[in-house]
């Protein structure tokens, strides 16, 4: 069997990897998915393809590696131009999409991670407050970007959709472990509706993992970390 020209080194549970899979699916790009095992040592292939950060996802296209999930998605959009566009075509709308995807990854997500580390109820309440502030901003962004349509990208799934959407499994896990219901129909009706539509979209629904599977994974990783530091 001829090796695929496109390979994705990724992890089924990683939102960063998931969004790249969504991008590849949106463009109907045939590729080989190589699962990197989160709990074992990093593979030689990963260390060679991403020597600086040593992280997934890495896209390998015609043997050239591209790292960093947002950069990979933009690369996919620029190379495979005969599929549907992921980023908008208007420069101002592109800038808006880039602003929000950066916000999601660099402002909202780090605060989400703080939830896990919150030492007591008071700390937890503070973090939850900050997370909700972010989500309220994202609700306003959705209203503005969607212009009354189904997705941030309008009629079609776009850049912000797949970046925020790649976290949906984990957002549900947060709720399952006693955290807040983030995409609450009362506080964020736009996003609540968006999440439902996104998760049933043909192209993405098989890529977002089941929350229960993710929860199992999360418990396993937590246990492994606890035993390695004991």
């Amino acid at each position: 069997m001829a090796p695929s020209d496109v390979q994705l080194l990724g992890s089924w549970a990683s939102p960063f990897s998931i969004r790249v899979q969504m991008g590849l699916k949106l463009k109907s790009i045939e590729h080989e998915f190589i699962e990197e095992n989160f709990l074992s040592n990093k593979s030689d292939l990963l260390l060679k393809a991403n020597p600086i950060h040593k992280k997934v996802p890495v896209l390998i296209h015609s043997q050239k590696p591209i790292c960093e999930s947002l950069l990979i998605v933009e690369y996919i959009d620029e190379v495979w131009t005969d599929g549907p566009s992921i980023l908008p075509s208007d420069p101002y709308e592109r800038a808006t999409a880039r602003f929000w995807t950066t916000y999601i990854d660099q402002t909202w997500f780090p605060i989400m991670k703080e939830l896990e580390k919150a030492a007591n109820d008071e700390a937890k309440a503070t973090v939850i407050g900050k997370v909700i502030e972010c989500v309220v901003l994202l609700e306003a962004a959705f209203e503005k970007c969607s212009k009354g349509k189904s997705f941030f990208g309008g009629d079609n799934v776009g850049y912000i959709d797949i970046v925020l959407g790649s976290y949906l499994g984990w957002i549900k896990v947060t709720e399952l472990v006693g955290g807040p219901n983030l995409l609450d129909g009362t506080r964020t009706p736009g996003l609540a509706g968006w999440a439902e539509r996104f998760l049933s979209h043909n192209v993405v629904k098989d890529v977002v993992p089941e929350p229960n599977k993710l929860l199992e994974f999360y418990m396993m990783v937590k246990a492994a970390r606890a035993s390695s530091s004991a």
Partner: protein
Amino acid sequence: MAEVKLFGCWYSPFSRRVEMALKLKGVEYEYIEEDLSNKSHLLLKYNPIHQKVPVLLHNGKPIAESSVIIEYIDETWEGPSILPKDPYERAMARFWVKFIDEKCAVAMWKACSSPGEEGEKAKEEASQLLKFLEEELKGKKFFGGDNIGLVDISANFIGYWFGFAQELKGLELLTKEKYPNFCEWVDEYVNNNFVKENLPLKDKMIEIFKTLA
């Protein structure tokens, strides 16, 4: 009313990057200096989420985040390209900018401002990170090849700003012996006619560093 306005700060490397991009494209703009200790209501209006400079205002529409602004400038105005045309080269250029901002900047700032062991650790980390940039410059005049590009204007803070911090703190992190390619790039970059006109003055930089670090 000017079509293009830039809210910036004279000593912010992020603000200066955007100015470089505008000047490379020959875009006329109105510059508005922000006092970061007393932010204007306009800045807070145009960047309510992060409340930071730089912010570009084009035909009344605001754009925040220096790397987002620079890509917008490259896409909107004719003139020399800031990003490469080839998608793989573009991905690599964006990669290096992220590396510089998210890894190098953090480690180098810590190396200058954190005391004791934390500072030492940061210095060691920064040394390792600079090796990657050193390697990337092999055989090249600029990160962008023969001409200044996105990575060069984004590496400005290492090329220029860090030099002052290093001098002030007596750090020997970025030296010709350890990083010959990188130091040669710094010389080329800061002495480039076009760049020279757009860098803040040395004595003003040293003054501000004394208050910041």
